[in-house]
Every structure is written in structure tokens, then in C-alpha cells.
């Protein structure tokens, strides 16, 4: 699998991912002729004499050069002797748990793979571009000393593994879209009625709904830009002539402008959400997205919300972040069994998600209004930064674990 390029800015990520996928397809075509080429270096244990073990990765020979080890830190120099790209895994021969990987090791390239191994039976697996799999000889490690720094072994997550979670998440999104449609209809109605206070309340309610849907923004495509776009470089939500959607309306509702100026944008938003409902019904979520976005939704909050740059006057940053946390929980939800099976510490993550929610919601008053980001004290800001940043740290491994790998 080519690595999906990631950007915290979710709508950009879609484009980048498409580019990389295309490049990956090119690579696949080139490496289709999966025959072996002669090794470019002499294979054998520790050619470099630095304690590393030289092993060969090829389609008729995977892992040769490694025949025995005692436990502890091991460094392999893996040389791809084939004429195509190869993914190389060092895994448990018993459970398939992976201890190290080299993705997309190019023909005649070599790279270092390090792991700290305890007792067990291990093997190298080499997977060529068109998916022939070669498994190397098993190497047993026994009687190794106990140590605290063993590399965690994780059973790879395959595309198949993500099928059901993606379906589950997609169904949740599908169920939320009518709520969103109702919300933007309320917004349009209250703008029509000329009630600015009601319009502001409706705006926050509808926007919060949209902000819970983060793991699907990639699939939303252009609809995301139309509905929740932010102003272009050097412009504001008020001045960007191309900006539509929530932030354009926000800039009117929280300004001196006539409320009626928001009416055409509200009508447009109703229409764009309706379009989204229609198109999403026939859109398939990329299975990679759920795990990736489970991490990145909050990464985006830290980058774009906590610096206040997405706020166009409503001061509802904490409402948005609160919704982003819920969106994160919704993205994690279908992945929980996969993650639990792989030793991921869900309990600690849950603690910090709850802590984040409690802290963020402490900035909501009894009347439902939210304290603007700019009004909190320096000490409160430190608490917010600490709590959300720690939570993002804990979410990051989800994307790493759910990176789709070829199961063996």
C-alpha cells in the first residue's frame, strides 16, 4: 500500500491522497513483472560488522541471512534483491503479530529494520507489488532475559478488517445528515424571520452537528468546502467572494450587516446539504479514512480551532471542539474491537476524551452560551492545551495501527 499523505487540514488531505494513490498505481504497473534480480550485495550475517544482520528480501527468498538470534535489540539490514517494490514484515510465526515493517522497499534498495524481541518464533514475510507472498524460515528465540523495552507486536489491520467498521461509521453519518438538514433549515427559517438571536442559536446548533462528522469530510468532497469552507489566504470570511456555507453566514450573523444579507447563503447551505445527502448515499468511505481521521479530527481542532483562525465572529470555538471530540468518539467507536485486540490502551484514551469533554463543556454557561476562546485565562488556556494535546498524542497510534496492511 502506498502511504496516504496526511494533512491536518482535512479537505486538503483528500486531494493529496488521490495524488498519492495515482502514483501508487503507477508503481504497481512498473513492478508487475515480479521476477528476481541478482543480489547487489553479498548477503550474509553482519557484512557491515556493526552487529546488524543482513537479510535478503525477494519473492523467492525472504529473510535469508537470519538463522538464529538471542533476544534483545536486533537490527536487520534488509536488501530487496527483486526487481520490484516489496513490503517486508518481521512477524510472529505463531500469531502474525508484526514487530517491524519496511513498506515499499524499492528494487535493490536496502533499509534498516530494528526491533527488540523476546522469546518466540519469528519470520520475515515479503509481499510483492502484485501480492505474491513469500514467507521466510522461522527463527526461534528462547531463554531471553526479561526486559521492559520489547517492541510491541501488532497484528496488521487489513482492508477486510476495516470493512465492517467503515460500514458502521458510514451508517452513523447517514443517520446524522437528516439532523444536519433540519438544522440548516432552522437556520434559514430564523434568518428569514429576522430574529438575529434565534439565527445565532440555530447557526451554532447546525454547525455543531456538522462538526461531529469529521471522519467523513474526505468522502464529502466538494460539499465540505461549500458547507464549511474557510476563507482563502489573505481574506476573511466577510471578504472572500468565493466563500459560502457556515463561516460566510457566521460572519454576517455576528456583524453589523443586515440579517437579510445572510438569507441567500442560508438558502445555498440548505441546498448544499441536500446535495450532500444525495451524493453521500452513493459514496463509499475509504476504509483508511476512519482510523486516520479518528486521529486527525482533534489534530485539526488543535491547529485550526485552538488558534481561533476558523472563528468568523461567533466565538463558538469551544462548541466546535466539543463537537470534534464527539466526532472523534464516533470515529473510534467502530474501531474499538480491532484496537482492543491489538493491545491499544482504550481505557486511558477514554479517560482523556472524557477529560477533554468535561473541560471544554466547562466553558458552556447554564444558558447554553459558550465562552469565547479569547476570554479564558492563561491558566485555563494551559489546561485546554494540555488536555487536548495529550488526547491527540493518545489518538495518534490509532492511525498507525489502522494503516491498511496486507494480511498474511
Amino acid at each position: 500500500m502506498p502511504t496516504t499523505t496526511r494533512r491536518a487540514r482535512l479537505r486538503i488531505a483528500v486531494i493529496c491522497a488521490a495524488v498519492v494513490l495515482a502514483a501508487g498505481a503507477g508503481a504497481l504497473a512498473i513492478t508487475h513483472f515480479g521476477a528476481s534480480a541478482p543480489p547487489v550485495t553479498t548477503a550474509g550475517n553482519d557484512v557491515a560488522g556493526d552487529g546488524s544482520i543482513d537479510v535478503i528480501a525477494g519473492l523467492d527468498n525472504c529473510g535469508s541471512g537470519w538463522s538464529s538470534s538471542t533476544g534483545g535489540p536486533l537490527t536487520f539490514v534488509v536488501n530487496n534483491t527483486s526487481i520490484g517494490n516489496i513490503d517486508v514484515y518481521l512477524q510472529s510465526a505463531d500469531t502474525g503479530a508484526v514487530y517491524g515493517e519496511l513498506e515499499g522497499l524499492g528494487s535493490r534498495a536496502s533499509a534498516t529494520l530494528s526491533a527488540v524481541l523476546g522469546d518466540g518464533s519469528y519470520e520475515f514475510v515479503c509481499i510483492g507489488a502484485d501480492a505474491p507472498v513469500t514467507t521466510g524460515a522461522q527463527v526461534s528465540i528462547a531463554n531471553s532475559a526479561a526486559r521492559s523495552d520489547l517492541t510491541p507486536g501488532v497484528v496488521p489491520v487489513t482492508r477486510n478488517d476495516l470493512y465492517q467498521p467503515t460500514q458502521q461509521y458510514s451508517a452513523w453519518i447517514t443517520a446524522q445528515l437528516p439532523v444536519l438538514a433540519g438544522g440548516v433549515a432552522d437556520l434559514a427559517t430564523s434568518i428569514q424571520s429576522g430574529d438575529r438571536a434565534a439565527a445565532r442559536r440555530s447557526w451554532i446548533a447546525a454547525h455543531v452537528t456538522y462538526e461531529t462528522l469529521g471522519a467523513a469530510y474526505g468522502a464529502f468532497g466538494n460539499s465540505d468546502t461549500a458547507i464549511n469552507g474557510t476563507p482563502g489566504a489573505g481574506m476573511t470570511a466577510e471578504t472572500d467572494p468565493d466563500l459560502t456555507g457556515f463561516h460566510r453566514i457566521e460572519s454576517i450573523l455576528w456583524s453589523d450587516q443586515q440579517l437579510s444579507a445572510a438569507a441567500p447563503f442560508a438558502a445555498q447551505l440548505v441546498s448544499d446539504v441536500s446535495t450532500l445527502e444525495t451524493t453521500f448515499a452513493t459514496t463509499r468511505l475509504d476504509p483508511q479514512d476512519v482510523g486516520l481521521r479518528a486521529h486527525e479530527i482533534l489534530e485539526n481542532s488543535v491547529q485550526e480551532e485552538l488558534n481561533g483562525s476558523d472563528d468568523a465572529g461567533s466565538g463558538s470555538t469551544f462548541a466546535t471542539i466539543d463537537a470534534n471530540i464527539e466526532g472523534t468518539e464516533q470515529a473510534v467507536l467502530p474501531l474499538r474491537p480491532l484496537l482492543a485486540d491489538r493491545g491499544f490502551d482504550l481505557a486511558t484514551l477514554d479517560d482523556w476524551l472524557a477529560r477533554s469533554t468535561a473541560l471544554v463543556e466547562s466553558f458552556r454557561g447554564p444558558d447554553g452560551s459558550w465562552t469565547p476562546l479569547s476570554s479564558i485565562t492563561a491558566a485555563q488556556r494551559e489546561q485546554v492545551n494540555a488536555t487536548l494535546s495529550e488526547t491527540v498524542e493518545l489518538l495518534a497510534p490509532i492511525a498507525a495501527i489502522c494503516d491498511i496492511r496486507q494480511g498474511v
Partner: protein
Amino acid sequence: MTGGLPRRSFLSGLVGAGVAGPLAAMAAAPIAAEAATRASEAQNAAGGASAADPAARIPFEGINQQGILPPPQRAAAFVSFDVTAATRGELAELLQTITTRARFLTTGGAPQTTGISAPPADSGVLGPEVAPDNLAVTVAVGASLFDARFGLAALKPSQLRTMEDFENDALRREVCDGDLLLQITAQSTDTVLHAVRDIARATRGSMQIRWRRDGFVSAPRPSGTPRNLMGFKDGTSNPDITDAALMQKLVWASDGEPAWAAGGSYQVVRVIRMLVEFWDRVNIHEQENMIGRRRDSGAPLTAVAEFDDPHYDLDPTGESVPLNAHIRLANSRSQADLDTRILRRAYNYDGGVDPNGNLDMGLVFVAFNRDLDNQFVAIQKRLANEPLVDYISPFGGGYFFALPGVQGARDWLGQGLLSA
């Protein structure tokens, strides 16, 4: 008065007599004492010279922390954190985590491998293997840590408090104080930044950076004590760090402090802007009179070489070294002044440019001392309104108490405090 009038007063038409009078009186105890400070020469040669072997390490464990006595390393970061941990237990975990990371980073080795379970544990800034590079991580606590949050009020070191505004200060409180100060020093800047990132990542939820100031120690130019950005050698008269009895007297906490504090030391950090453009427009004679030393050699104006005694007994009226020269006010070489010296570990800083188009650079003044009031504070008060104040502006820093060292594999920074 040979010493220059305070420049700003002069410029604004005020006469400096009212200022100079008390200064003259204060410096009127011209008792010379011969105090050899050869050790500081060795200290500065070791600290300020060319980069050491990346494998060189300063032992992590000891009665005292590692970044107090050894010569300053070339690169430094001073990072002040506010603790966001919710409970005393979480504070203990935070200090344990800092200890674990500092132990690893200063010892070096291969970072934890994560396989496919997580992103890499290490930033990779130092390559696949972390070289210790004489890294020293020194942790100090600020007065605010002893507020109501963690139940530590009764355990506060006796003189620890929020740094007061001195006569010529322009403190910006957002870049002052803090619950915890990490002084991170190494031979190379990348080693320092790697450590800052590592520790901040490992402690993300438990503390947040309040302010940060990076510094560096210049190479000897051409020899002796490194120069500050005013062009003068800075720190020449430091006490001898190899004299354990002297260090006990001047640096390490003792009587009057809580039991847990033994082996710790009051740490003063003052981030001082130097108005270098203005300074560069001042005659060399005036510059040297303000400092009391020759700019080229570092020698006292009464002597030949850098480490020579200034022999104030031969210059009782300040004909050579003005009575309000910086070095004379700071240390008159009286026995009383010698007994209350501080251990300086100063760094230069370079902070870019200010809105006026002037360069923002200066000094991260760092001092360790046993008795804050009778050492640093007394000296600072003697320096009030010295002529030099027109060219400097202290704006950041704070008072901290450097924790005792870590002794043994099961010990951690602050264990004595948290277990008391």
C-alpha cells in the same frame, strides 16, 4: 566620581548625584582580598571550547543535579512550565516521567521501538541512536508549585518566592516565573531541542510551556572566559567549583530549609535584553568604566590579565575602577562579598528583532546560591542604578529551587518533596 553618570539620566538632563551618592557610600569598604579563581578558567575552557565527543556524558545520578556545577555547555534552553496535572499523584507521575526521560536522554542509546503499534517514539533529530552529547537536564521548582493545588505549601523552601521587580527591571510576567523550570544544556543545539521535544511530548497533559528562552555560550575569544554580547568577558570571578567546602557554603541548601531540600540550590534566572545598538554607540572608555574591565583582555582596569585581582586597596577612590563599576559593586572583594558570591552560569541569547528594527539579544543570567537574600538579592540591590542599567533591560526569568539530585535507579526528581 570617575564613573559615568547613568546615561539615561544624563540624556534627560537630570544630574546623577542622587544616584551616585549612595553607590559611593556602598562601595566605600575597600578591603582587598586575594581570591584565586583559577578554577573558573578551567571551567570556562571546558565549557566554552570546541564541541566535545558526542558520546561524552555527564552522570545523571548524584547528590546534586548535573547542570549546576559542571561548566556550562555550549547550547541551552530554559523552559518554564506550568503544571496542569490535576492531583498530587499526577504531579508525582509527571516528575517520574521527567526523570525517566532525562535519565535516558542524558545516558543515550536506542529509543524505544514501536513497530507498527504507534508513530516512532523518538523524533529522530539525533539520528537512530541518541548520543548524550553532555546533555544535562536540571529541574527546579517555582514558588507557585507550593500553592494550594498539591498540598505542598508547608514544604516550600524558606526563601522561595515570586521574583520581585528590582529597581531597573521591566519584567513581563508572562515570561517570568512558572511551576517548573527545566534547564536543558548540551554541546549542540540539536541535542538540546531534541530533549525539549522529547520531554514535552512525554508530559503533554501534565505541564505546559509558560515561557522559553534559548541561550548559547560563546567560544573563548580568543581565550579565557567567554564573552557576552556587549563584547565583555562575563563570569570571570566565579567561585572555584572544585572546592567542595566553598560550594557547600555558597551553593547548596542547608540550615533553615526543609529536610527534602538538601542537595538543592536556589536558582535565579534573569533574561536581560541588551540594547546593543545604543551600547555600540558608546566610547570604549565609557564602556570599560561601566564594567570595570578592559574589553579586549578582560583584565580589571587596575591590572594586567583577566584573572588578576583588581586590587581595590590601591584604588580606594575609584580612579581606575569606578566605585560604581559593575564588577566593583557586584564584588568589592571584601570578605563579606566573597562569602556571599553566587555561582554564575550565564548564557547569551539571540531573539531576532524588535518592532523598532533593533536586534533583540542579551543575556540569560543564571545563578545558583544557597542563601537567596544574602547572596543574589544583596548583589542585585548593590547594582541598583549602576551606569550599566541604561543599556540593559531585565524582562524575564524568575526564582526557582533546583531539586536535589537523583540517587539510585528507583529515585526520581522531587521524590523527597512529594514524599515528605
